[in-house]
């Protein structure tokens, strides 16, 4: 019984969201606010479980066994609480210390990783013996696109038309994003339709259509 109810609820919600294709309306707004409430609630629940598993438990074992590393977990817990001072305009500066630690770890970890993977890794990937046409095209091509992203005046004058070629090569890359965005979004719609086009879900489709047509009729008369 419970899963019939779930199918009815989820199908109704899917159809309510699809009404935006007709126009923005109360049904769509209801579904949207439902989602924001659910996802934010989920994040809070998860935050509580994480603090318990990643810090509170370690602090307790640390205190019991006297292990310094465990006891030191009091520091991130305090910093975690301080971050909520962001909401008081008077004491906001207090929350900055927690953000500073997170930023320091985040930025330095990405600098460590990106300089090795994106910069050195991609340069090594581009450095190949030019044995055929493709090799030549790839080498010149990556230089042209790099030069497109160089903005200093004199440097741009020296390199002449190369950045223009770079921009056209970028169009190929943007074409790849264009084609893949379409395939990606279609896969999501296919996933939703897989659930919608099966009994008992699709019985609700005519109901939704009737409501939309009725609404369109009423609105056309009143205009």
């Amino acid at each position, binding site marked *: 019984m419970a899963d019939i109810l779930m199918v009815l609820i989820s199908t109704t919600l899917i159809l309510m969201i699809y009404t935006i294709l007709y126009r923005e309306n109360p049904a769509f707004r209801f579904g949207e606010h439902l989602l924001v409430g659910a996802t934010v609630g989920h994040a809070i629940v998860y935050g509580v479980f994480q603090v318990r598993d990643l810090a509170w438990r370690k602090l307790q074992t640390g205190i019991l066994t006297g292990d310094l590393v465990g006891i030191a977990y009091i520091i991130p817990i305090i910093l975690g609480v301080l971050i909520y001072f962001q*909401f008081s305009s008077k004491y906001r500066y207090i929350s900055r210390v927690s953000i500073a630690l997170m930023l320091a770890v985040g930025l330095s970890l990405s600098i460590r990783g990106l300089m090795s993977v994106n*910069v050195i890794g991609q340069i090594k990937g581009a450095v190949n013996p030019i044995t055929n046409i493709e090799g030549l095209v790839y080498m010149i091509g990556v230089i042209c696109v790099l030069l497109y992203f160089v903005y200093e005046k004199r440097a741009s004058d020296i390199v002449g038309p190369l950045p223009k070629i770079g921009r056209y090569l970028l169009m190929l890359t943007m074409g*790849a994003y264009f084609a*893949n965005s*379409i395939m990606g*979004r279609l896969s999501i719609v296919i996933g939703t339709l897989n*659930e919608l086009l099966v009994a008992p879900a699709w019985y609700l489709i005519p109901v939704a259509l009737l409501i939309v047509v009725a609404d369109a009729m009423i609105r056309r008369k009143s205009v």
Partner: protein
Amino acid sequence: MSSVWRNVTSAILFLVSLIILVEYVWVDATLQRLTTDFNNWAVVIGAFTLGLGGYSIIVRHWRMIVKRRTLWPYSVVLLVTLFTFIATGLITGSVTSPQYNWIYSAIVMPISSTLYGMNAFFIASASYRAFRARSWEAAVLLVAAIFLMLKNAPIGGVISPILPSIGTIIWDIAGATGMRAILIGIGIGTLALGLRVIIGQEKTPLGGAD
């Protein structure tokens, strides 16, 4: 008092970053210990920030209800759902308990997948009305995109095997030139932004320059 705290903040930002960056190239037990601890502490603070968004949304929508702003009934819907999820999660003790799983699959799954897929419809109508080969650049993009679409969809190969092969050539050129340069650009851009934040020249990520 606040100016002392501000110096402490910039000192932490600079020192912690320096330690983690040096640890990448220098073998040293204390450096490694400190990096692991800072790393795990950042994970804990990350867990606390999950609640930050929640706090501001609860306050904003509560104010909308109290002041009877337009659309306030939707704020009631939002807050009721929010507290239902929190209550179910905390009472059942885990997010894969049957009850939590039920409300999650009934509400979050259908709405978010429909919303995320919605763009397929908007792209379809824009394909007819807005995607024009206004310039040579846009023409190159559209032609490349069409060949790549025929590579992505099995129908392309069925119509004629040349189509996917042209698509693959375009895909390889795009991957080896444009993508590579964009990745290098992101690497350098992150270093530039990172340095400016670490030395305190760029304040925005810290929440404004006041």
